[in-house]
């Protein structure tokens, strides 16, 4: 049953650009790439926020760091995706390691505030990077180069690369969550004191989780720099952290597809409403409020519940 659903979703995602192309609506392909990229970022946040129960309000730092890696490398003439994308992941993971090593010593509201503070610090640092455009940011002349006949300048190709990354990230996430590591991280969310008392160095596990999420989000950042061919400090600003959090909560904490659903709904709503009013954020906020009120476990939770109550054939 789940397998069928996954395949149907994948088929739709693969067919989408072909349909858009046929209808001559290439703008939507570009928009869909954006959704895929945010889905990767939100999925990485779901690892720490949903599965790990760590309410990090600073995820934009890793998103922005990944984007700036690509941007800065491009300024210096390094265009290969094989260099800059892994670089983005490593830099973001290292950043997550430093930030996590400090923040994970705190709990609750302090954790939220200190992750936010770190991200804002990063924001002001890149704002001050005059060599790389300061608040203007960097305009990329082109997208990263992959080679092997794959040309990212083509929006449809770029879409498929983003889709490939998202599918890979979801698969890895699924494996990780169901493996020993995921078992530990989720149990720490449930009862950290007891995890300590049965012999787990909980801090270290949380830190590893934080670093993995940071690295994956860095990759999403590398993609967004390519999608917009533009990086600026706003990518690291707190509204981005907030938006990613909303995506995860809206989509469903600790559901594999939580980040994907959240990214889709939030960006889609925004796109739908913003042409009509300058108060689009307000209306989007209201819609979110309604959804969260009626679906405390997010949209994914609602779907699971709905599927659970439907009579269905046995799995397999």
């Amino acid at each position, binding site marked *: 049953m789940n397998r069928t659903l996954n395949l149907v979703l994948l088929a739709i995602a693969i067919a989408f650009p072909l349909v858009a192309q046929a209808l001559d609506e290439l703008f939507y392909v570009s928009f869909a790439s954006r959704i895929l990229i945010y889905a990767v970022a939100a999925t990485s946040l779901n690892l720490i926020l949903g599965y790990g129960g760590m309410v990090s309000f600073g995820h934009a730092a890793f998103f922005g760091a990944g984007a700036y890696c690509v941007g800065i490398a491009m300024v210096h003439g390094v265009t290969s995706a094989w260099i800059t994308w892994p670089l983005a992941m490593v830099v973001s993971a290292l950043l997550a390691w430093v930030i996590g090593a400090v923040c994970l010593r705190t709990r609750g509201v302090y954790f939220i505030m200190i992750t936010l503070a770190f991200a804002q610090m990063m924001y002001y640092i890149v704002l001050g990077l005059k060599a790389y455009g300061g608040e203007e940011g960097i305009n990329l002349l082109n997208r990263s180069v992959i080679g092997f006949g794959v040309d990212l300048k083509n929006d449809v190709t770029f879409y498929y690369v983003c889709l490939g990354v998202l599918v890979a990230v979801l698969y890895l996430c699924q*494996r990780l969550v169901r493996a*020993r590591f995921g078992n530990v991280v989720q149990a720490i969310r449930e009862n950290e004191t007891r995890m300590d008392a049965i012999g787990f160095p909980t801090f270290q596990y949380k830190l590893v989780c934080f670093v993995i999420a940071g690295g994956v989000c860095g990759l999403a950042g590398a993609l967004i720099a390519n999608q917009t061919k533009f990086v600026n400090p706003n990518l690291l600003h707190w509204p981005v952290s907030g938006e990613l959090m909303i995506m995860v909560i809206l989509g469903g904490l600790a559901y594999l597809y939580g980040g994907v659903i959240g990214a889709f709904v939030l960006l889609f709503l925004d796109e739908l409403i913003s042409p009509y009013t300058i108060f689009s954020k307000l209306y989007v906020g209201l819609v979110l409020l309604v959804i969260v009120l009626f679906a405390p476990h997010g949209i994914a939770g609602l779907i699971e519940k709905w599927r659970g109550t439907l009579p269905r054939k046995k799995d397999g």
Partner: protein
Amino acid sequence: MAKPVLEVLGLTKRFGGLVATDAVTFDVVPGEIHALIGPNGAGKTTLVHQLSGAVAADAGSIRFNGADITVMPTHDRVRAGLARSYQITSIFRRLTVVDNIVLAVQARNGTSLSFWRPIKSESALYDEARAIAKDVGLAGREEIVSGFLAHGEQRQLEVGLALATKPLCVMLDEPMAGMGPEESERMIPLISGLRATRSVLLIEHDMDAVFRLADRISVLVSGRIISTGTPAAIRASDEVRRAYLGDETVHG
């Protein structure tokens, strides 16, 4: 007497003006059940918190299995073989009984920095967890979400989680708290059987159980150990009787 596995020397803890642990010195030897008794608020749980590493002592030292563990983090103490259970049940309420115990088994079996293999396929972990569930009297209840267990069963799981770490010495903080007589009756042979492989620091208010189980008893009053001895000696001690047991005769 054998060399102690756990040695506590001059341990002291103050909460503001209150001296919760007052220069406590005692030990637990291998294979013994050492009971710690004392009235409400005597400082028994606070002492366990310090021994487990949840609370830092102000003064004194703790030696375990030949090493000084006074400032060792909790999880390292557990790995060294010193585990505890909680007076206030602290289980993973949203997980099943077996999934609870699997966590403790997992903690001492190889690395958990394993990101690929589904844990459900690690049948060795589950087999061992089921065996432990059976040991603590939860056979047939393995697949129940632990938050839905009866109170007594949750207490059994609480003890099971501590035992699943395979400790050299286990500290049980009122394992029978809130249990009915029948459930307590089931717990007594379980604790008694631990003697064969481990030592036990048993905190318990049920005097009947204490006198049946303990090899030695220490009496804690207002943070101080006023007496340590065999059950017979403690029962006969006037000082203990006055300070704690009251003047009523204790039945054993």
